[in-house]
């Protein structure tokens, strides 16, 4: 059974695109071979919302000479960060790349950086990795590996600018727990296509939070696959798209084994005439995955005229023996009645907007579980709103 629906809303209209029949997500090509993926034209199922022209530099099968500046917090005992040669890096990657940008990233990254946390190591403080772009073309391959029963929080923060493609592989052995925060705080001209691939062993737990605020184009494709029973993923996402920004988040949760749980919760705000966000959430419950419990949600708040949010949840169910499966997708205009209510209590227009947008994101931000990140995000969101005010003034 395949359930697909698609809501898309511009400022004035909210309507359904209708069902777009799709082959099973399980049938998508994956390969380390770049030639397995023709250069995307924008007509392909997984590229149909993407600005392929802007992304073109990331489709070129050639060496890239740029790099990101790495700054890493002090690594405690049991944690290592090391370069891994290309052959070995491919072997330690949890799955083959799922699109051309990702395959090229692996091919031209010149090996991977591997963050490895030994079995039974519990890291209390968040491990932070700051990646700062200084321009140019950059290919990246990153491995995050947690041994059995290891636990850690990893915050990866991207700033500066680059034309950047990457594959991030996340390997959680049995009973490991990872809280991974990926922050896209790029300068406004950065182009970023990333594939994040997670594999979870038995009883493993992944909490993934993606925050996309910066960049001209950010396209993140996250896949989580269950390899053992009793595992769970919680994937949260927060994005704020202004004029000229394209922010795309694709998700794929692959329930291949019984008794696993997945939750996907993405929320976005959009402001400005050409702001565009895309959310595609695919969940596949394979025949063997009895006792699956899954729910995915995407909500978009359109603050000004002209912004466009595409939202496509897609649930594929191959067994009836499940605990629960659901999805919800909603895109709404900024509510003028809420504004009136707040302003009738003396609250200024700008502050009222701030309250409403902060309120929209509040529960999500509290899920991140890294206080420093939560606080800085609230400040960032205030800045985004201040930016909206400027745009509105110019109208």
């Amino acid at each position, binding site marked *: 059974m395949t359930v697909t629906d698609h809501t898309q809303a511009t400022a004035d209209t909210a309507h359904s695109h209708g069902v777009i029949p799709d082959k099973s997500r399980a049938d998508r090509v994956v390969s380390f071979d770049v030639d397995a993926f023709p250069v995307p034209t924008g007509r392909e199922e997984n590229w149909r919302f993407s600005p392929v022209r802007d992304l073109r530099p990331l489709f070129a099968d050639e060496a890239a000479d740029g790099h990101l500046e790495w700054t890493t917090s002090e690594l405690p005992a049991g944690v290592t960060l090391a370069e891994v040669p290309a052959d070995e890096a491919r072997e330690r990657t949890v799955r083959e790349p799922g699109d051309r940008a990702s395959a090229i990233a692996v091919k031209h990254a010149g090996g991977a950086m591997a963050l490895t946390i030994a079995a039974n190591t519990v890291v209390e403080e968040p491990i932070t990795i700051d990646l700062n772009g200084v321009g140019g073309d950059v290919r990246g391959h990153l491995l995050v590996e947690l041994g059995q029963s290891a636990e850690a929080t990893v915050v990866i923060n991207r700033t500066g600018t680059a034309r950047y493609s990457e594959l991030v592989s996340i390997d959680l052995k049995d009973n490991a727990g990872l809280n991974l925060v990926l922050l896209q705080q790029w300068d406004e001209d950065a182009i970023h296509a990333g594939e994040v691939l997670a594999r979870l062993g038995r009883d493993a737990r992944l909490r993934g939070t993606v925050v996309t605020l910066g960049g001209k184009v950010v396209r993140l494709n996250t896949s989580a696959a269950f390899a053992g029973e009793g595992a769970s993923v919680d994937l949260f996402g927060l994005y704020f798209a202004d004029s000229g920004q394209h922010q795309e988040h694709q998700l794929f949760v692959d329930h291949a084994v019984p008794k696993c749980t997945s939750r996907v919760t993405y929320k976005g705000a959009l402001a400005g005439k050409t702001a565009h966000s895309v959310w595609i959430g695919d969940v596949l419950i394979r025949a063997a995955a009895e006792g699956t419990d899954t729910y995915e949600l995407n909500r978009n708040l359109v603050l000004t005229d002209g912004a466009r949010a595409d939202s496509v949840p897609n649930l594929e169910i191959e067994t009836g023996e499940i605990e629960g499966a659901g999805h919800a997708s909603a895109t709404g205009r900024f*509510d*003028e*009645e*809420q504004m*009136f*209510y*707040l*302003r*009738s*209590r*003396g*609250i*200024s*227009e700008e*502050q*009222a907007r701030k*309250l*409403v947008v*902060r*309120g*929209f*994101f*509040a*529960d999500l931000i509290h899920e991140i579980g890294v206080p420093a990140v939560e606080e800085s995000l609230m400040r960032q969101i205030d800045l985004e709103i201040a930016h909206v005010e400027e745009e509105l003034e110019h109208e």
Partner: protein
Amino acid sequence: MSTLEIRNLHVTVETPEGTKEILKGVDLTINSGETHAIMGPNGSGKSTLAYSIAGHPKYEITEGSVTLDGEDVLEMSVDERAKAGLFLAMQYPVEVPGVSVSNFLRTAKTAIDGEAPKLRTWVKEVKGAMENLRMDPSFGERGVNEGFSGGEKKRHEILQMELLQPKISILDETDSGLDVDALRIVSEGVNRAKENTGLGVMLITHYTRILRYIKPDFVHVFVNGRVAEQGGPELAERLEAEGYDRYLANA
């Protein structure tokens, strides 16, 4: 001593069928300490009057004036009207998800006063006001009107009114849908504000029952976008006995 003066107010709204005039020349003066009951059938324009004074963008003023102590209210933005001392307890308060009641109250108080209230006294003040309105302290942590029952929403409106201390308050059917216990609690709140701050009240209601708990000085019968008759409390008693039919027949 404050005075809200409404003169020859005409208001239209845009409907799918075109522009529609709803208020057709309203005259009304409310002074501090006075309670004016505005009574009228559904659809007569009571909420339109309330929203127009508060500055809701859907309503267009085509003629007339509204002043507060001589200041032109119609020139003010919505938040400026609140800062000038007007308050509207809404008939259908909206939800603002994720914004806690306590954050909302503090933000509003700060905006109205032009400075943040002293934390210690403010916390005590809020706590006391909530106790008076029989609101559980956990209310402060809930989202504004999020999942509130009808009665909780109305008590929350009165809570704001008591804390923000306006000069003139418009209560739009605050009594509708309340059981007697809740009605009593809400009425006590209004009477407290009258006593403590000399609040002037425009008490919009469809039913006469609330007038047993909040004594009006004046009663205005509102029909088809204007005041059809006015008098003292005795007019309310007559309405209770006869209903609005007499006015509707004439309209």
